[in-house]
């Protein structure tokens, strides 16, 4: 099922300034959140805004903070001038009867280990139904075209 991904405005603000972009630290990760988290696309900038203690899913085979998306890369420009930001898919959350069943959104962010300095990148639309790894493995795959692109 394809689900819309939205960039946080504050992330675009970060990327727009070369000094701020260069200062981004941490590991790109994908975390799963419950319906209780309401994204503020305009104002949310760091992981602490998500209030993970109450809004992130919990369960067997899910580690708080989510799974890493290894090797983030900017590639291009291709012949048409397209630049692409991409990374490896987060590892699949393996099935467990005591896993989580109430995931409603995926959040991409740079984890520094400190929630107040971990920059938010993007959030998906609501999955439309509670999802998880109770009935089967749960995976989030980045689009074949990348996480986001910058066209000419």
């Amino acid at each position, binding site marked *: 099922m394809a689900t819309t*991904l939205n960039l946080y405005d504050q992330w675009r603000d970060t990327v*727009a300034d070369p000094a701020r972009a260069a200062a981004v630290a941490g590991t790109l990760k994908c975390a799963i959140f419950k319906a209780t988290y309401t994204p503020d696309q305009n104002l949310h900038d760091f992981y602490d805004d998500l209030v993970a203690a109450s809004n992130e899913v919990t369960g067997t085979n899910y580690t708080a903070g989510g799974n890493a998306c290894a090797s983030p*890369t900017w590639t291009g420009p291709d012949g048409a001038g397209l630049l692409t930001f991409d990374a490896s898919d987060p590892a699949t959350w393996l099935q467990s009867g005591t896993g989580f069943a109430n995931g409603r959104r995926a959040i991409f962010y740079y984890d520094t280990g400190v929630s107040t300095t971990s920059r938010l990148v993007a959030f998906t639309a609501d999955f439309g139904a509670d999802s998880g790894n109770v009935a089967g493995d749960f995976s*989030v795959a980045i689009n074949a075209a990348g996480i986001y692109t910058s066209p000419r």
Partner: protein
Amino acid sequence: MVWWNPRTWFSKTPEVRLVAMPVDLNPDQSRQLGRAMMRYERVKAAIRKGDKRKELVRERQKLEYLIEALKK
């Protein structure tokens, strides 16, 4: 004498647009393969461009195995 002060202006403000792409939940095998092949091309391009991270070389290898497995 009248001095003409030349000015230059942009007829249009250039824009830098970032376009987020939809993610796939629990993709089927053909979508996994499509994704793996595109990612493989990008990892190769990054290495060719001079990105020397060892993790990228490892990822390229992992993707080769994954693509082979998904093609079967």
